[in-house]
């Protein structure tokens, strides 16, 4: 019991540190790829601290509700993951974060955040379906949705789920809000929708959402590590490789439209996943 409580406190804190650090690496690496110096690794933390110190301001009270709910859900999902719970429950809880992000963004009459909310919904649809298919694959291989059963597998899941891993990479790109799928709000405020779903969140609310975003990425990378859960080095290397690949892709790819994302990107990813699932059963 005490152990669980300690874990429940330690996991979100560690995940925040890790997520911030990853964001720092991302910014530094991207800068180097673009022949810039780039900020220090601690810059994301400094940014968030600065945001938290700013004045609270909303155009609709829901914008104060949503970030807290979003962050809470993201942290809770991670704790469940650390406790080796039911993957479906983890995904359902994780989903709540996205729901509240969109609800807060839609609560403002701003055309930018409204339009981006629609895109965010399509992005959520793309990611969620693929994650649930991963859960299905986990069930078909281990006979259970509980993560605790995974360590008993003799060989890495990746051998049996190559296509699903490709689909997961697509979902990771969408979730990290990276080109070519930084449609509903990217890291730069110069896209046609300003900052998309984040346009109307300011100050501490934006800070909370930034932290929630870090936690989401950590959860995705943790799910990525499930694909090679048989050895500890691989559990670290595989997500790291995926993370670096997304950053590389971000720097070489131009942005695509959401129609492309939904039609070709998600369509292909879903078909690949379905194929992969069907041969698992046989």
């Amino acid at each position, binding site marked *: 019991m005490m152990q669980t409580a300690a874990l429940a406190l330690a996991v979100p804190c560690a995940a925040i540190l890790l997520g911030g650090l990853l964001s720092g690496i991302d910014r530094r690496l991207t800068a180097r790829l673009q022949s810039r110096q780039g900020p220090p690794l601690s810059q994301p933390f400094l940014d968030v601290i600065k945001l938290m110190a700013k*004045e*609270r*301001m*909303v*155009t*609709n*009270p*829901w914008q*104060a*509700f949503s*970030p*807290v*709910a979003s962050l*809470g*859900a993201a942290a*809770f999902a991670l704790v469940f993951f650390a406790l080796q719970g*039911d*993957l*479906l*429950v983890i995904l*359902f*809880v994780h*989903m*709540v974060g996205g*729901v509240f992000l969109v*609800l807060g*963004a*839609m*609560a*403002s*009459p*701003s*055309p930018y*955040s*409204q*339009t981006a*909310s*629609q895109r965010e*919904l*399509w992005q*959520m*649809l793309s990611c*969620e*379906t693929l994650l*649930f*298919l991963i*859960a*299905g694959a986990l*069930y*078909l291989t281990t*006979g*259970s*949705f*509980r993560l605790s059963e995974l360590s008993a597998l003799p060989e890495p899941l990746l051998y049996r789920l190559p296509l699903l891993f490709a689909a997961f990479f697509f979902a990771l790109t969408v979730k990290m809000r990276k080109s070519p799928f930084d449609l509903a709000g990217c890291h730069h405020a110069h896209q046609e929708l*300003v900052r998309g779903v984040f*346009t*109307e969140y*300011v100050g501490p609310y934006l800070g909370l959402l930034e932290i929630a975003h870090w936690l989401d990425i950590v959860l995705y990378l943790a799910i990525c590590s499930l694909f090679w859960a048989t050895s500890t080095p691989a559990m670290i290397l595989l997500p790291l490789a995926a993370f670096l690949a997304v950053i590389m892709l971000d720097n070489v790819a131009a942005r695509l439209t959401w129609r492309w994302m939904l039609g070709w990107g998600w369509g292909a990813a879903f078909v690949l996943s379905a194929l992969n*699932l069907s041969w*698992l059963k046989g």
Partner: protein
Amino acid sequence: MSEAIPVVLLIVPFLAALACFVIRSSACRSFIVIATAAGLAVSSLLLQGPLAPDAGLRWAGIIDPVITGGDFLLLAIMFFLGCRYRNFLIIMLTASQLGLFAWLEFFVFAEDQGHALFAVDILSLVLVRVVCLVGGLICLHAIPYMQAHEQHQNLARSRQPQFFAVLLLFLGAMNGLVLTNNLAHFYFFFELTTLCSFLLIAHDRTEEAVGNALTALWMNGLGGLLLLLAIWGLYSQSAQLDMGGLVAATAGNPAALLPLALLVLAACTKSAQLPWQKWLLGAMVAPTPTSALLHSSTMVKAGVYLALRFAPAFAHTLLAQGLMLAGGFTFFAAAALAIGQRNAKKVLAYSTISNLGLIFACAGIGTPGAVAAGILLILFHAVSKGLLFLCVGTAEQQVHSRDIEVMRGLCAQMPFTGMIAVLGMLTIIVPPFGMLLGKWLVFEAGADHVVFYLMLVLGSSFTLLYWVRLAGTLLASGQTTGFKPEIKPFLTRFPLAALGCGAVMLGLAAPILYGRLLVPLTSLFPVGRAFSAGQAGMLTTAVGSFPLIVVFAVAALIGLLALSGVSKAMVGRKGTAYMSGANTRLPDHFVGPLNRPVRAVVENAYLVPLFGEERWTLWVNLAATGLLFLMLGGALWK
């Protein structure tokens, strides 16, 4: 005592309906409706199962002839309606039912050998409480609603007596349908709900209303015919009408599969499964209490009840596989069609069809866990969907439109109704509330079947999308201060508040209910997976676990934290929405040409070309028909 309660639940609504019809004073009618709703609520809570094996037998001498006579009367009325509106289809369907029923009644059915008239198990208990509590609240909400509804119509003579009489009759019919143990009596109540739905849908007497009511009548008439054929087939297999006995006697009997398939088809028409969704969508023209009643607690629930009741008889056959696929397809396709809808009531309608598909799929999966999930879904769906229909109806009377875009920013205009509606939508899509628990149980029960699992994943993602979009649209407004709860009659606010509390809190009861459901269900199913009812506060299946109490506590904590954040934000300085720096004093306007304020209009992406019903209805219906034929084929395959 316990034997008298089913009779009370059956008789009181009929008497109250009669009183409503006869007494024309509005105050008396309100009193009768309130008293009946309260009485039914209390009696349904007092009802306990199981009853004695000869329950109700001493009244059989009265009830049997009354119901048989009622059957002929009902069919005659429907026949007459077919003639009056010159609807050949209805005439044919009712005439064949009339002939078949007379033949069965006089030449086939032997004298009953002392089977119980009523049976109460956990499934019927859940259903009775749904009918009496949710249905009762809907009737209460209807009192002020119908008064406002008639103000626009300039009627010479109020038509409310008929309306409330049929509403109460409907509750009685549903109670009878759920409590009876005799399949022939079940048929009577089944037909009675058909006639009631016709009367309720046609209530406004517009051309559209009557047309849609006739569609409902012929589709459900077809369901009635299928049910009668199924009864004939089942009776010829085991020479009894006792429902519990029939389930036990037909399980594992390949010759009984065809009648069982007809039974399932009848259930599908009643529950408006694809390709019979048209009548339920058409029923949207009726006043909101009708839609709420048809969609949440009565009518459509009769179909899924029948399928779940007989699920043990066809578990693990090709018929069950077909039903699972057909239900899964309806879940997915109706959710996709809901995305392309900008009519709020139609979104609710498609979502109902979709969720019922999920419940049918539960009956098809046919494990104790899946059937328990189906029963839980019936309960949670009734509460959440009843709530949403009442909210949309209340909103509709204020904004005079069902268009989602017109309801944009409803929470600023009607904070009470708007917020409860958003809450109701959250209880459908977000853990730890009931609907999501049910869906989780289906995920866990159905993951063995890859095709079904794919449909499940797609359907639930689509469901999430359209609910979040609708909730966000209601919230969208730039208003930050001056929220005044709108002034509504107590009878409007009370059902909303009660259903809202129910939708939020009922999820907590899921582990207990699930545990209680599993025990009797496991004894009913010949083959089933091992299960564990789990610890208290934990929902456990064979393949996963949902720590409900923990999730609930954390959700409450996060909610409170977020609300305290809201109260802090309310006192702070207010911002304006970003309009590229060209804001005006109006919250959603920017400075346009000639320094005139221009409203920034953004609408949701409904993607009508991709998800529109005009484009897809035909194809979806063809696919669903194909799946149903597959199911029938599965029944014929020896």
